[in-house]
Structures are given as structure tokens and as C-alpha cells.
């Protein structure tokens, strides 16, 4: 076994040419954090402009570029790559594999991302400015009426799609083929399960997104009229295609987050996950349902009533498996021996706020009521509760939870808890009042607003600055840990942690499980 335990290459070539899942995971994580800060900067511009009624800082056209880039960078640059990074680090270690199944492709999946985002960001400096049609880029605003930079946007989306598809194929191949003997499907940690299902969603819908942007490209440059009624096309067709990708996409974002929470809550409850099997089935049903609910984003486009009813009922159904998950997490905590280290705090924050976002989701699914909610700040509040307090909180929990394992150093717990509380409070000051202004009638994506919305908007902006600033504390804590955190060597960093990744030495060596491990007992069950 292991005659030459070679370590990483030296210098920049280590990172450029690496096929090591841990290196690639690290790069994904740092890249996504950089994108999180960039997208966050755009958000600060938005909130600064909305601090008071009237136009103060930017012009309306530029404001739209900010909202568009903020959405695109956060969804495709921050959240999605961060979970791919986590998958890279953890899936091989969780299933007892030496690396990902397709390591060279893994290198490519990462390295095509930075140029894609560089290209997307460079549109800011192009004539006519960056894309300004929202992250949902509805035609014809994004075709006939778009700035020339839209072509670069389309190319960037294509590259992101290729990267995601390659990453997903890799995850599917790893999970299907590289599990250690004895690691049956129903013994896999939930994080692996949720990612396996997510990977299938990605493979299914990223090509649809690629199709949508290709049709845009044809409309813009090659004289077709897919999305133009004047030439026999249909602008609503765009929305159907986009949301056929877009709704599964929101679950692509949240399912790995569910997986993370399902690992961490049992660890700090010192009790196995409640209802492992039902968690797997709930995840699979959510994934299935996510394909048949897309038009709940389109209740006001004038669908026939049969369509409205179908999509309303199907969307309401998603609340059932989502509820099952929440109940299972709480039952896991019930009669455990709970402690509240930073990862657990973020998971409890997730549990409370994600559930709130689920409730507003249920409200939005009611078609007649959505006529009043649609495209207002109420929707903005909903999706930030599920995406920020859901996906981003769980990602943050994951970093605090596994970072000590990765680098063999402990983060500063007091600073971590401070980060949690500032985030939690800042987040709610930002987004809770957005429910109010939305219900009171404030449309989304506007650079200026009527006077009755002024107070809550100011509150929202203040909250956003607080939440934004707290992320710098996070950055500082992570860097301080990696560089000079207290060294630790216990294999199990947390006494309640379960799973194969906690059986390798701390810090995790460059190569793990070169020989398949014995799978002692199923993670998450007994």
C-alpha cells in the first residue's frame, strides 16, 4: 500500500494541473467566496440606491445591470460552485473513494469557470453596458432590446452550463462506481444522496438552459424568431423554457443544503438522523415534483385556467416532502444532547428561516393570491429566505463544520458565533420588511419607489450593510484559521460527528482511502 505517498506539486502548477479532489474542492470554495463578495458588492450598490426615495447614486439603466449581475453572480458564481466545491472535498471521503471518478475532467470543470465569470463581469465595461434584463432574462428584453454585451452573456452561460454538466457527471460516476465495499445506497450519508439527486437534476436541466440561450443567440444574430411574435414566435415560450430549467435550478441550489443540514444537526444532537429513509424519499419526490411546477412563476402570463390549476396543485404538493424534511430535522434534535457550536447555530438559523421561506412559498403557490404577490418585494423576500438563509447559511455551517478537518486547525468559536448572530439579525432586518413593502404594493426591480415605502426600505438597506459586513468577519475567521488557527489532531473534530470522513487523520492527508475502508456501520443510521 502506498509506496510513494506523493504530496502536491509545488507552486502555481499544483493548482493549474491538479486532479486532486481536495485541491479542486478548495479552488471551487475560494472561487465561490470571491464571487459571493463580488455579488455582495453589487447588492450593496442596489441597497445604497434604495436607501432613500429618489435617484442618488446610479442611473436607472445601471441599476438594472446591478440587479442582473447580482442575481447571476450569486446563483451561478457563488451558490452553485460552493456546493460543487463541498461535493469535491466530501463525496470521495464520505463514500470511501480515493478521488473523484473522472479527475481530469474535474480539473476542467473548475478551470473553465473563472474565464466565464471574467467574461460576464467584463460586460460592465462594454458599450451599452452589462446585461440589464434581470437574472431571468425574459425575451424580448434580452434579445431584440438588449445591449450588444448579451452575446458575451450567452457565451458565459454556455460555459457555466458545460462546467455544471461535467461536474454532475463526475459526481454521478463517483457515487455509482466508487463506493467502498459495504457502502450500499441506503447507507450513504444524506449529503451524498442529496448531491446524487442534484446531479441528475443538473444533467437534466442545464441543456435546457443552453437551448434557451442558443435560441436567443439565433434570434439576435441569425434572423430567427423563436421569441418574437412578429415572426411567428412567442415571448412566453421563452419563459416556459427558462422556468423548466429555473424551477429545478432552485432545488439544485437547496438540495445539497438539505444534505449539509442533515449531516450537522445529528452531530450536534448526538443522535442519529431521524427518518433517514424518508429523507431520501422526500428528496427524490421534491426532485420529481420540481419538473412539473415551473409555470408557478408565470401565473400572470395568461395561461388557460386548466394550466393554472394544474401548476397550482402541483406546487402546493411540494410543501408535503418539504414539511417531512423539517419535521425530521426537528425530531432529530428532540431528546438529543444538544450543543450550539457555530455550525449548529447556522443550521438552526437555516431551520427557522428556511421554514419561513417555505411558508411564503406555499402562499405564492396559491395562484389567485399570487396575482397580488407576483413581481413584488414579497417574492424577493421569499427567495432570499430560501436562498440566503437556506443555501448560504447551510454552506456557512458546512465551512465551520468541516474546515477543522480540512486544515487541521480550529477556527475561533467566539468569532464564529458573533458571525452567526450578526448574520442572523442583519439578514432579518434586511429581508423581513421586504414582505411588508411587497404586500403593500412595491414592485421588484425598480431603482426608485413611492414615498410610503421609504421607512422599510431604509431599514432593509441598513440590514443589508450589517449582513454584508458580517461576511468580512467570516473571511477573516477562515483566513486566520487556515494560517494560524489552533492545531488539532483528533480524527473526530466533533464528538457527535459520524461518517467515513471523520476516520481519516486530521488534517485530511492529500490522498485518502487509497485502500477502500471497511464500512463499519451506516452513517446516519444504526
Amino acid at each position, binding site marked *: 500500500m502506498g509506496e510513494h505517498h506523493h504530496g502536491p506539486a509545488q507552486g502555481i502548477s499544483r493548482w493549474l494541473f491538479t486532479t486532486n479532489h481536495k485541491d479542486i474542492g478548495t479552488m471551487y470554495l475560494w472561487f465561490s467566496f470571491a464571487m459571493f463578495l463580488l455579488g455582495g458588492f453589487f447588492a450593496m450598490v442596489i441597497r445604497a440606491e434604495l436607501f432613500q426615495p*429618489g*435617484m442618488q447614486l446610479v*442611473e436607472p439603466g445601471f441599476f*438594472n445591470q446591478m440587479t442582473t449581475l447580482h442575481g447571476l453572480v450569486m446563483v451561478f458564481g457563488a451558490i452553485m460552485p460552493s456546493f460543487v466545491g463541498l461535493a469535491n472535498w466530501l463525496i470521495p471521503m464520505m463514500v470511501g473513494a480515493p478521488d473523484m471518478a473522472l479527475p481530469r475532467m474535474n480539473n476542467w470543470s473548475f478551470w473553465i469557470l473563472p474565464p466565464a465569470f471574467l467574461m460576464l463581469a467584463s460586460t460592465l465595461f462594454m458599450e451599452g453596458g452589462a446585461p440589464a434584463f*434581470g437574472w431571468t432574462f*425574459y425575451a424580448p*428584453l434580452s434579445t*431584440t*432590446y438588449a445591449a450588444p454585451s448579451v452575446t458575451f452573456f450567452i457565451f458565459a452561460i454556455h460555459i457555466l452550463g458545460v462546467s455544471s454538466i461535467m461536474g454532475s457527471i463526475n459526481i454521478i460516476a463517483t457515487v455509482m462506481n466508487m463506493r467502498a465495499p459495504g457502502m450500499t445506497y441506503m447507507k450513504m450519508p444524506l449529503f451524498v444522496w442529496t448531491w446524487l439527486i442534484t446531479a441528475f437534476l443538473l444533467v437534466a436541466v442545464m441543456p435546457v438552459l443552453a437551448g434557451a440561450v442558443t435560441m436567443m443567440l439565433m434570434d439576435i444574430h441569425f434572423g430567427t424568431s423563436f421569441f418574437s*411574435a412578429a415572426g411567428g414566435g412567442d*415571448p*412566453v415560450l421563452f419563459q416556459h423554457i427558462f422556468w423548466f430549467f429555473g424551477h429545478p435550478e432552485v432545488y439544485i441550489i437547496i438540495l445539497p443544503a438539505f444534505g449539509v443540514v442533515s449531516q450537522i444537526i445529528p452531530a450536534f*444532537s*448526538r*443522535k*442519529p*438522523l*431521524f*427518518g*433517514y*429513509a424518508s429523507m431520501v424519499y422526500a428528496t427524490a419526490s421534491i426532485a420529481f415534483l420540481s419538473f412539473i411546477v415551473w409555470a408557478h412563476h408565470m401565473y*400572470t402570463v395568461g395561461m388557460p*385556467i386548466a394550466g*393554472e*390549476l394544474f401548476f*397550482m396543485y402541483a406546487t402546493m404538493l411540494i410543501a408535503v416532502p418539504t*414539511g*417531512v424534511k423539517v*419535521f425530521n430535522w*426537528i425530531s*432529530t*434534535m*428532540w*431528546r*438529543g*444532547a*444538544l*450543543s450550539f457550536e457555530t455550525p449548529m447555530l447556522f443550521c438552526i438559523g437555516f*431551520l*427557522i428561516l428556511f421554514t419561513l421561506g417555505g*411558508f411564503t412559498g406555499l*402562499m405564492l403557490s*396559491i395562484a*389567485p*393570491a399570487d396575482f*397580488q404577490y407576483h*413581481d413584488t418585494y414579497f417574492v424577493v423576500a421569499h427567495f432570499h429566505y430560501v436562498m440566503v438563509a437556506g443555501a448560504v447559511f447551510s454552506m456557512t455551517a458546512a465551512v465551520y463544520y468541516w474546515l477543522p478537518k480540512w486544515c487541521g486547525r480550529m477556527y475561533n468559536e467566539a468569532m464564529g458565533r458573533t458571525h452567526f448572530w450578526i448574520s442572523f439579525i442583519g439578514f432579518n432586518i434586511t429581508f423581513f*420588511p421586504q414582505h*411588508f413593502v411587497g*404586500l*403593500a*404594493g412595491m*414592485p421588484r*426591480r425598480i431603482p426608485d*419607489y*413611492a414615498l410610503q415605502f421609504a*421607512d*422599510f426600505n431604509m431599514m432593509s438597506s*441598513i440590514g443589508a450593510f450589517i449582513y454584508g459586513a458580517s461576511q468580512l468577519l467570516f473571511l477573516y475567521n477562515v483566513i486566520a484559521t487556515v494560517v494560524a488557527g489552533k492545531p488539532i489532531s483528533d480524527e473526530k473534530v466533533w464528538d457527535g460527528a459520524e461518517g467515513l470522513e471523520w476516520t481519516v487523520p486530521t488534517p485530511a492527508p492529500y490522498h485518502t482511502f487509497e485502500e477502500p475502508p471497511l464500512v463499519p456501520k451506516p452513517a446516519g443510521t*444504526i
Partner: protein
Amino acid sequence: MGRVFSGAVLAFLSPLAAAQNQINMSPGVTEIGADIFELHMLIMWICVLIGVAVFAVMFYSIYAHRKSKGHQASQFHESTKVEVAWTVVPFLILIAMAVPATSTLLEVYDNDEAELDILITGYQWKWKYEYLEESGEPVAFFSNLVTSQEEIYNTDEKGDNYLLEVDEPLVIPTNTKVRFLVTANDVIHSWWVPEIAVKRDAIPGFINEAWTRVPEEGIYRGQCTELCGAYHGFMPVEVHAVSRDEFDAWMAAKRGAAAAQTQLAMQTLSVDGLMDLTGKDDG
């Protein structure tokens, strides 16, 4: 800061502050608006109840099952019975929600038998209204934002209806079923007036339908709700609901003006006549 806190406190405590810091949907003035509002409140309260129950359990657990208090973890980890229960019970609750939701949706879609048809067309960045009637002079006009650039760029005091005021509002009669045919000329817009609970996307090349019956006279304001380019935030909707008599008088005046316009356009004038008409005599 001061304003933020006083604003927040007022919003919760004082009904007087309702217009300032409204925190809930308005039931509006129409029957459908009231139905939607009730539906919204019903679902919200059900969510609140479930939320309170679920979080009560969680917080109790956080309080009572702490390791720091020396609580020992049990090791139970599954129960088919409870899993079935918390799948079936929410499902039943959803059915209870779907019933009123379906009937309200049917009402919203009941576009038949309108007494007045109005074609609404979205433009970057204004609305055009056309009264579609079989007889009489056609009445059509654009409706533009009138809030001044000075107000928007903070060199002038902002008026009460900042960003929600137009030069020519849409005028409709009360107690009349009005059907809106909604379309657009360039990109997608969306025509929304919260108080009458009508929101419909305006899609170029397609015509959507919506309807209302406004029982009370009044001024109802709204905005475009689909991102439609740079000035999406600056194309408000203003609807004046007036009594039937007032509406007829308004319509007659509009028709008169329209007729005069048409006549003017149809006239064959000599050069002298044209000079007279424009009042420009360079003689």
C-alpha cells in the same frame, strides 16, 4: 436611524400609520380583491399556526435537551407511524386550502359579459388606453408619468403621489364590468393596480384578458410589474373610477375632442386656410 425605528414602531402600533407603513396586502375595493385578501389571510394564518407549533417543539428541545444541562441523547431514529402522519395531515390541510383557491381563481378568470372593453398597450415606458366601442369616435390616449425630473433627482420636494401620477389617467365607470385587453408594443410589461386586484402581463403579439367591477368612486394607483428596461420604475398606472354619468360626460368630451381632431385631419384646406388655422401669417 431615528426614522427607521419610529417607522417600524408606528407600523406595528398605529392604525393611523397604515398608509405610510402598510405591512399587509390591502383588501382593495373590489369583490375579487376582498376574496384574494381573505385567501391570503387564511393561508397566512394556517402557516403561522403550523409555524408556532413546529417552532415551539424546536425551542422546547433547544431549551430542555441541552448537553450543557446534562441531557443524555436517546437513540431513536425512525417511526413509520409518525412519518405517515406528517405526510397525510399536511396533505389534507393542502386540500382544504385548494378549495377556496380554486373558486377564487375561477372568479378571476370569468371574463365574459363585459359592458366596456378597454385595450391597454404597454410601451417603453408608458401605457396607452383605447376604448373599444362599436359606435362613436374612437377614444385613445397615452398615459405618461408626470413626476418631474427635479423631484426624482432630489432638487425639488417630492409630492404626495411621487412616481404614481400620470398626465392622463384611465377613467372607468363604477359598478360596470370592465374588461381589459392587455398587450404590449415592444417588450413585456405588466399592468397592475393593487386596489382592484388586477395584474396581467402585457405581451407583444398576444392579448391577455382581465376584468374588474369597481363599486366605489376613487383614484387607484399602481405600477408596471414586469421589468421592461431602464425606466421600468417610471411607468405608473392611475385609474379614476367615476359614476356612470360622470363617465359618460367625460367620454363625450373625449369624443368631441377626438372628432375635432379627425375633422381637422380630414379637411382639405387651401394654403390660405391652413395659414389661418395655424395662426401663422407671415404677410
